[in-house]
């Protein structure tokens, strides 16, 4: 059911929009091309933002800093009920999508997908987003320099969700 929904969602949206426009007499293709031109310009505007963010993330990932911080956080985290194995994922999830996905895939092989840890890591991964990248791209596309409290509020949201994920898996 769920798989069916996500596989037909896009074709249905296409059908609905183009059919409605056609019936209403809107010049469908002309408008499509006009909109697509704006889209192309936006995509070019985002490239420099992507290069910058990915370079920063790469510097962090390549340096092994995550392992060092994990070591430092181990004691306090375990006291709070957060398993040591979850710390690296919690640290990099908001910053790097590809690195966190790679880490998640490697860890779940090791701990087993149906153990408490495997479920906890899956829930962390499934309920969170690469906050920094998303915000940088969205605000970069809109030419916003001062994002005010966006990053702070998103990190609050991210960590509340990820910590909740671990505790929910302990209970459920």
């Amino acid at each position: 059911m769920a798989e069916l929904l996500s596989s037909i969602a896009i074709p249905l949206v296409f059908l609905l929009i183009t059919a409605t426009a056609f019936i209403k007499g809107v010049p469908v293709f002309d408008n499509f091309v006009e909109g697509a031109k704006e889209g192309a310009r936006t995509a070019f505007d985002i490239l420099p933002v992507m290069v910058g963010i990915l370079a920063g993330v790469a510097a962090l990932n390549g340096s092994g800093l995550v392992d060092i911080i994990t070591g430092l956080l181990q004691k306090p985290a375990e006291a709070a009920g957060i398993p040591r194995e979850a710390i690296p994922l919690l640290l990099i999830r908001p910053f790097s999508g590809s690195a966190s996905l790679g880490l998640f895939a490697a860890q779940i092989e090791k701990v087993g997908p149906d153990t408490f840890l495997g479920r906890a890591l899956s829930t962390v991964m499934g309920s969170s987003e690469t906050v920094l990248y998303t915000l940088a791209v969205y605000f970069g596309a809109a030419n916003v320099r001062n994002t005010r409290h966006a990053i702070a509020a998103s990190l609050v949201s991210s960590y509340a969700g990820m910590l909740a994920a671990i505790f929910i898996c302990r209970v459920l």
Partner: protein
Amino acid sequence: MLNVIWVIMLFSGIVTGLLTGRSKEVSDAILSSCGQAVNLAIVMLGAMCLWSGLMKVAEKAGIVDALARLLKGVFRFLFPGIPKGHPANGAIAMSLSADMLGLGNAATPLGILAMKELSGINGNSPVASNAMVMFGVINAACIQIIPSTVLIIRQQAGSENPGSIIPCVWVASLVSALSGVIAAKVLERVSKVPGGKDGPALRHPV
């Protein structure tokens, strides 16, 4: 704020690399990230054109307006200050729906479109409006009905029931979204727009 965060990321990565003798890894990673960014951007270029074009058609056909009217109540609370019947309403609705359905390739272009609409309402100012921040935060909270990527990886790892985590994901996403909305609403009182109608100049421009 990215002005600060970016420097911190680069600086801590490079210095740690120097201290731990991993400079070569750092250097390789930085250089290969440029190619990665271009690949991502090219994939995005096509998706951006497709969805921007389709959204333009939807706008002209009045679908965006209809969608916006449907979600009026929630939007008035979350994104105050969007004029009635403005295309931003519909763009936000489309983008959040794509997010929830886990349509990654559609969600990003639609999100960018919505953010640009919101920026237009904000006079294309370089300072984000409350509605723009709220939209960014909700997007980053990522309420996904079916976390398909995670399910695929669980299946590959030999899980007996890959979908068993879905209820947990829903609860965690809800916690994440609610705390994000609350954090944004609370922080918007503190983080004033410099010289804007929301208050006096910001002491620490971020």
